[in-house]
């Protein structure tokens, strides 16, 4: 019942991102087209010159240096053009990779909290890293060489038409079959590859999860079980990959056997002695040699098309999954201003995850400076109320406003100075102790950091660390209670208007709790405090019972 299903309103897709990259790098794109075309054109000339050379030899004339140098020079030019093409493609491929990851991160930043919670970190990494890499391969070794190969096939077909019409007809008849066979391989490979990528992402997600839960794995003695799970995940990807390998390995041999059959058929027709057949297939021995070369020349680009299919297929599987990611719901910020109202206002709010309502027609107000405790049994929706206040979700019905603004529409920049949110447990970010408090927000000064730490009584403990505030944070640096204090320092650092405390005392003893709360109280002149507690008494301020 989350109402902000505004599907795809920015409608980003892989295709659009790529198109945009091409548009913004016009010069680079033109340089690539130039290099590709030049590489094809220059590669057409050496065989012609070679033909001249052989003609000259047949006529018992000496080969001139001009011919030799022209032949070699054009070969060199072809090579240089190919080198330029590869280099430019690398640069271009990386530009696209960069743009795709930027686009993905933009999207990630705009995902609804619900979508955010459903992301597995391992799967996100494999989307951002693995899938984007395969899309890059689409350009560096897929589409462009496919185009070049297609050009080659057409030009060879034209040449064969002039030498042996019968063969050209045979080939034209054969091409649809070839196309069907290629499509068949494509389809089977795509499904196997999607399955493979899914399995790979499950397997790679298993590794960070194990690292995170390593203590449980050790104390329960479940190393073997975890290995078995990992084996299962790899086994799934192995199985899917084996299928891909089958199609990959069978494609080229099948094509080359077909090549041999075509040569055989042409030879038989030419040897048939039937005049009607010979009008189409008749040829001299010299032409026969030339034609055999042409046949293998037309089949070898078809064979590399087969290889390029593989690249493109795996990229398409990646594209499909990236597009799925880009199609997820986004939250929307609207500019709704209302006349001055209580700080927090719930107006007939109904809300639930999936199909089960947690809150039904809930209404309450909290005024500036007021101290309120939310009370109720486990699962009554107290944490959910916080999530609504923080704007992570929009209510199904009714409205949640902060200073008259819909909570989900509060801009990011304003949030840090508005809310201080202390969760039940601390989420460590990679970095120093200071980074834990600032969360990399450079607008929070060192003074504010220190003040926040002093407030929670952590300053001494931090200063006694080897590098003080610049000590790199590890999970064993602080005790559980100290982590909680750090969490409070994080919330208080930006001096927010409102503190949201979610069962913070769950992990604090009474003494520390009192120190912390009285410290916070000292600076909460105009600060609103909303807390969650299972247990309440008279000293907790106004009580709102939920559920």
């Amino acid at each position, binding site marked *: 019942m989350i109402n902000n299903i505004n599907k795809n309103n920015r409608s980003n897709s892989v295709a659009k991102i790529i198109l945009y990259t091409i548009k913004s790098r016009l010069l680079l794109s033109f340089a690539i087209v130039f290099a590709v075309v030049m590489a094809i054109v220059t590669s057409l000339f050496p065989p012609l010159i070679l033909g001249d*050379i052989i003609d000259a030899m047949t006529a018992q004339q*000496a080969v001139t240096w001009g011919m*030799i140098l022209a*032949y070699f020079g054009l070969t060199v030019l072809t*090579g240089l*053009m190919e080198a330029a093409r590869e*280099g430019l493609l690398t*640069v271009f491929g*990386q530009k696209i*990779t960069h743009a795709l*990851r930027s686009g993905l*991160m933009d999207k*990630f930043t705009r995902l609804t*909290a619900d979508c*955010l919670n*459903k*992301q*597995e970190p*391992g799967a996100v990494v494999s989307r951002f*890293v693995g899938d984007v890499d395969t899309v890059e391969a689409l350009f560096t070794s897929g589409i462009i060489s496919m185009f070049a190969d297609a050009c080659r096939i057409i030009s060879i077909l034209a040449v064969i038409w002039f030498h042996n019409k019968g063969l050209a007809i045979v080939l034209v008849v054969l091409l649809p079959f070839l196309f069907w066979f290629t499509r068949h391989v494509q389809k089977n490979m795509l499904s196997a590859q999607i399955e493979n990528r899914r399995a790979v992402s499950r397997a790679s*997600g298993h*590794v960070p999860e194990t*690292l995170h*839960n390593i*203590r*449980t794995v050790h*104390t329960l*003695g*479940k190393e073997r*079980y975890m290995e078995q*799970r*990992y084996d299962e995940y790899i086994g799934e990807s192995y199985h899917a*990959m084996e299928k891909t390998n089958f199609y*990959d390995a069978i494609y080229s041999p099948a094509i080359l056997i077909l090549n*041999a059959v075509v*040569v*055989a058929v042409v030879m*038989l027709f030419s040897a048939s002695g039937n005049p009607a057949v010979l009008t189409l297939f008749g040829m001299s*021995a010299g032409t026969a040699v030339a034609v055999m070369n042409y046949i293998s020349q037309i089949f070898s680009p078809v064979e590399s098309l087969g290889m390029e299919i593989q690249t493109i297929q795996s990229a398409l599987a990646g594209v499909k999954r990236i597009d799925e990611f880009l199609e997820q719901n986004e939250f929307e910020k609207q500019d709704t201003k209302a006349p001055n109202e209580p700080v927090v206002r719930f107006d007939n709010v109904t809300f639930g995850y999936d199909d089960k309502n947690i809150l039904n027609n809930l209404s309450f107000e909290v005024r500036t400076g007021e101290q309120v*405790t939310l009370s109720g049994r486990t699962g009554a929706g107290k*944490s959910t109320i916080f999530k609504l206040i*923080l704007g992570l979700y929009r209510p199904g019905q009714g409205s949640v406003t902060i200073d008259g603004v819909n909570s989900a529409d509060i801009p990011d*920049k304003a*949030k840090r100075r508005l*809310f201080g949110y202390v969760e*039940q447990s601390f*989420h460590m970010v990679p970095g120093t102790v200071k980074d834990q408090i600032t*969360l990399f927000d*450079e607008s929070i000064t060192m003074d504010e950091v220190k003040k926040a730490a002093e407030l929670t009584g952590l300053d001494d403990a931090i200063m006694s660390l080897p590098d003080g505030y610049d000590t790199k944070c*590890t999970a*064993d640096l*602080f*005790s559980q209670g100290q982590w909680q204090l750090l969490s409070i320092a994080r919330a208080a650092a930006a001096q927010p208007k409102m503190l949201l405390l979610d069962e913070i005392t*769950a*992990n604090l003893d*009474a003494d520390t709790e009192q120190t912390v709360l009285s410290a916070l*109280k000292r600076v909460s002149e105009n600060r609103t405090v909303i807390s969650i507690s*299972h*247990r309440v*008494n008279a000293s907790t301020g106004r009580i709102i019972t939920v559920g």
Partner: protein
Amino acid sequence: MQQTKKKISKKIEHPDRIIEYFKEEWIVLLAVTISGMIYNVGLLAGPWFEGKMTGCLVNILGGSETFADMLILVALYVISIAVVQISRYIKRFYVRRFSNNVNKHMKQILYGSLVHKSRAQLQEEGVGNVMTKAILDVDDCVEGMRKFTTEIFDTGVAMVAYMGMLLWYDWRLALLCMIFPPVSYYIAERMKVIVQKTGAAYKVQSGILSAATLDRANNAVTYRVFGCEGERRESYEKNLTDYEKSAVLANIWNSSLQPIYRIISMTGVIFILYFGGKNVLGVGWREWSVAAFATFLACFTKLAVKSSKAAKLFNAVHKAQVSWKRIKPLMVIPNDDAPQSVQPVRCADTLESVPELTVNRISFAYPESKNIYSGISFSAKPGEIIGVTGPVACGKSTLGKTFLCEYPYDGSIRLSGRELKDMTASERTGLVGYLGHDPELFNDSIANNVMMGDKGDCRQYLKTVCIDEEVNAMEDGTDTLVGSGGVRLSGGQAQRLALARTLCHMKHLMVLDDSFSALDKNTEVQVFNNLRAMTQNNIVILISHRLYLFPQMSRIIWMDGGRAIVGTHEQLMEQCPEYANLYLEQAGGGSDEKWQM
């Protein structure tokens, strides 16, 4: 193949030697070798038959052979091509199977060694790095091994064949034009340094990017709540730019040098055109027909293309070496004594050793820092529940973790008469259960999270922790997926599920660190009573800062400033004023818990 045909075991004696993986897969590699040989030798069949057929066509036109001769020839041609191509299929398929097997095997070993590493060891390396190491590096490394295996046949064998052919036609000209492929080869070898250096820099950047992505995904909600997403977005953009630079550098050396190598290899063609032309005119080293000239030129072109591929092969092998160097130190088979003794010794089957816990004057410090607590002594008998409490940072969580022996302690902890630190890790695992603050749930079903692969019904444990009804109400019951780290559960649900898992794997000594903190009082009391009923034969150490259940406990340990006072609830009420005050504040004054604002 003198190797005795023992059942292909999963054991590799030296997992840090790459050759072992080739040995392990010898059957698959044998298939590759046989089919690879047939394929490469058979490659000559095509041109040979084509020449024969041309000759036959000439003879038919001249009337000296018949259609039937051509029919036989054509049939043989198609059959031989079919045999060659089928061998090629077998070769390709098995080369890939080989790489799949090695890939799987390496990842198994890697994961196996990772899962057996201690928590402290794992924290020395960043999660993202370990992950890229384990997954990306193995893929790269195996890709290099695959290419190496493939190219031994496709490039190595084929090149020797072509060279033989060239020498046979005109050995002087052959030697002259064959100077150039080794030159390109040599340059490729010299470029190896740059390729490896940029490759390594690229690897580092890709590790950083993965770590940044993982952080962003793991802490997404935290960053959002604090409005830090914009800033994180910019920092990620910077990572992307660095990555782009290093990737372009690394890949440009890899890809755009190929055509250049080919040009260098092809330089020999100048000599072929000049001296070959002379040969045809009859004024050179040998007498050639035009056909011989064409064959020689075609052979040389193929050789040159192959040798530029050889350079590519070296780059792939180099890339594999960079990866392998990073994987190698991780490739250790853990001394795997775990599975036999992991079975928790149920109390009934050990009559002689009543599991009694005696803790004598223990103290603990993290490496290179001062003692967190010292001089704690107490003992416990089966069926007893010991409560541990004290102010924040008094070391009570550390006391709980001491029983895990993640770091050494001073003093003595004896369980069933044996010293805890002298036991093997697996023996300890069989005796000590632990549950900390973090529920550490897996992205799997509820049932799998509780049973962790054990047989049985998880419902009884769910009932013990009073979560059975909530689970029944979920869409898939016990098969409901809990999401990564249990995100789809509430804090209290995750905590109870973790408790159910711990109870399902009951040990002699159970250490529960604040496992009820997210529960409301009624649920907590109910769970506590169920726990007590279940642990009649076990010792439970319950760390908590909520004291209203403490009167029901056998003994209390009050910790403050690294010191401990041990006694029954009544004794502590008399002897320890801090404890008494705290208890009275929480339970005494009519309210459940002090909460002042």
